[in-house]
């Protein structure tokens, strides 16, 4: 098993006829993702790499049958409408690739998703990939590269940086450790599935035995992962790296934020909390594969 996507998951691409939509549809299809339909309002009746294009998600659903996942490549200002349309039509997982999506739009998407029991990855995400099964979004760029860089295995990777999702996974592959699912949770302040939610999914996934987390300063995601571990909600070995040690903490713009969050969000606090709950916090990204290897050999837990 992997998390979120399987080989037979039925995938829709919204914005399939745009610059990014077309190129990434090719990547997904070449890699083996089961892309069954595309949507671009006004372009219904055409096709992109043999994927039929419809005017709406509802129409795609009627003509092609149930859709499990939608990968969205529309311009940022149109993301909200596309996402709400997909959730309303019954799609249970969205991957929202574009960046610069207004934050209140994300909150509205999140609100409807909660109501309907759906979830979403992103925005501002490269997507996710389960080696040998499927890629959603644009991880790897080209199918042949994605096959070379990522191999099936037992390590789950969750990262707030797109580039580092690929980099960490590639360095694991190089030392012979494959991955169950690698996921870029998105680079924005508010994202759909954040680190703690991904940890819960990895916890339930039998294929995943070790998890690597690439965190960054800002937001409370890493602290919430620590809380989750403390509460027993995540029990697998965790290797974590927090980026942004050198970045100056910056002026706090919000007193309200400071009152509610306290020191959460800072580099020091994230490292401290993760260490307290027994995660392996490394100083260098290049230490990640070394520690993973040691865990595999049973030298550490």
């Amino acid at each position, binding site marked *: 098993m992997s998390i979120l996507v399987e080989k037979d998951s039925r995938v829709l691409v919204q914005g399939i006829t745009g610059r990014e939509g077309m190129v990434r549809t090719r990547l997904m299809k070449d890699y083996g993702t089961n892309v069954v339909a595309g949507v671009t309002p006004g372009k219904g009746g055409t096709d992109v790499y043999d994927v039929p294009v419809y005017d709406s998600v509802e129409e795609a659903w009627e003509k092609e049958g149930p859709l499990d996942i939608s990968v969205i490549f529309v311009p940022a200002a149109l993301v909200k409408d596309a996402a709400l349309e997909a959730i309303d039509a019954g799609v249970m997982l969205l991957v929202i690739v574009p960046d610069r999506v207004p934050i209140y739009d994300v909150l509205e998407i999140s609100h409807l998703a909660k109501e309907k029991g759906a979830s979403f990855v992103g925005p501002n995400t490269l997507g996710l990939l389960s080696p040998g099964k499927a890629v959603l979004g644009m991880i790897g*760029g080209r199918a042949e590269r994605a096959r070379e860089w990522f191999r099936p295995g037992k390590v789950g990777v969750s990262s707030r940086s797109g580039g*580092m999702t690929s980099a960490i996974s590639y360095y694991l592959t190089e030392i012979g450790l494959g991955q169950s699912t690698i996921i870029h949770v998105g680079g924005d302040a508010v994202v759909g599935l954040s680190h703690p939610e991904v940890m819960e999914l990895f916890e339930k996934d039998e294929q995943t035995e070790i998890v690597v987390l690439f965190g960054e300063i800002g937001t409370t995601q890493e602290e919430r992962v620590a809380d989750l571990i403390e509460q027993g909600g995540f029990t697998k070995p965790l290797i974590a790296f927090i*980026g942004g040690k050198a970045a100056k903490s910056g002026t706090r713009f919000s007193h309200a934020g400071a009152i509610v969050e306290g020191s959460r969000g800072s580099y020091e606090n994230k490292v401290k909390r993760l260490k307290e709950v027994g995660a392996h916090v490394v100083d260098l990204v290049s230490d990640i594969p070394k520690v993973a290897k040691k865990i595999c050999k049973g030298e550490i837990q």
Partner: protein
Amino acid sequence: MAQLFEFQGKKLLKEEGIRIPEGEVASSPEEAFRIAQRIGKPVALKIQVWVTGRAGMDGIQFAENPEDAKEKASRMLGMNIQAFVVDTLLVEEKLDIRSEYFVGLFVNDAQKAPLLVFSSVGGTGIEEIAKVHPEKIAQIPVDVARGLRDYEARNLLRKAGISGRLLLQLSETLVRLYRTARKYDARSAEINPLVLTEDDLVYAADCHLVVDDYAVFRHPELGIEVAREFDRPPTPLEKIAYRVEEKDYRGTFYFLQMTEEIPKKEKYIGFNGAGGGGSMMSMDAVLDKGFKLANYCDTSGNPAASKVYRAAKIILSQPHIKGYFASGSGVASQEQYHSARGLVKAFYEENLDIPGVIRLGGNFEEKAIQILATYLKDIPAEVEGYGRDDSPEFCAERMEVLINRNNSVPHEVRPIRDPVVPAEAYAFETFTGKISIDHSKCPDCRTKGCVEACKAEILKLDRGRPVLAISENEAKKGKCTECLACEIFCKFHEQDAIIIHLPIPGLKDYREKILKRM
């Protein structure tokens, strides 16, 4: 995050019906005099800068009469506060305050909702007050689909110990504050202090609104010049960079200066990262080697070669940097030869005088590294290209070696010269520039390699000369991806007949000013 000044924020609160003190902005002592005269009461003078704790730095003063206001304004205007020189004061009626409260809203990542926080004690030092008196603080998440309801605001206030008529007055203000925040896509909206005056009226005595950068396009009326997370006004070079980003949606280009004054002797480098995480990791590596960063820059998300070119030209507008360091995650999904070509064009034009270490790991990195090696042989500086199997730490070491070998020579900024294009050259516009081809040189070309180099297939041969294979309009709308391959091929392998002009508005003047100053 695009911050608004107090006077701008207050104007928006007023539109939504929140009471604010009567006042206006002044940029001269005489104006302050006139405003105070018109108000006809004692006034408060407040510097308009993005810092907290203004009172403690004499940034808020009171004047009894217009004469007094003029005199105090003359001392406050021109004050240096952190990175600001005070050029604007808010002159407003002085309130007769009975009590102070705090209300603030921010978007909370854990709850994925705006969180409204109220404190029944407000004013200076609110964060410390909150620590000592948690019982005076209450908070609720707001449902974005239906907004903040009156009773929710009342319940929030009740939990913070407010009751009676005041509960009604304040709840109204809270609902209006939320409406303002929502209307203007504010990631953070605060009133501190929110005050009750001796005559029983509620006023917003201060206001701090931070608009979501990504939603600034919806609010042209706010006149936000640079929608970026700054805690100071943007520098002239940052403004130039922002114009580039604003006009080109292909990929990300973020540019931030750490300093505008780089001493000749210090180990500053120009930094060109790619992707947030990879950039941070790379920054850590160079900082660990004792370097300082002149700037932070991110070119990622599959940017056009022309965009990376502009980024490099902007980075190289910083005098005295000792090296150019580019590094991202190491395993980028984007095709790295675009970045390589952008850097080649910029470095070649600049006749680069400082060493570069360029880590371009990812898709087609071999080709990218080869492009750097092939075309940068003849410039004075040494430039080395690296890939995914070379760590940022190793690359930082190489940077140090190359800078030492270059005797730590500081970078000299050069004037920008517009390319000279023959009047009769064949030319067409692209998305952000112009391509001209001097057809008179084409008869000597044996390979016609420009057509082959064009992966977008927009060029064709017409009687042995390259011309557009698509309409001019299509080329301008983006069919020409500005990959720079035709120009580089023609320049290095053939007749040097192709010129791609990619203007950067404002940069020429900026460099001239810098050169004059030195």
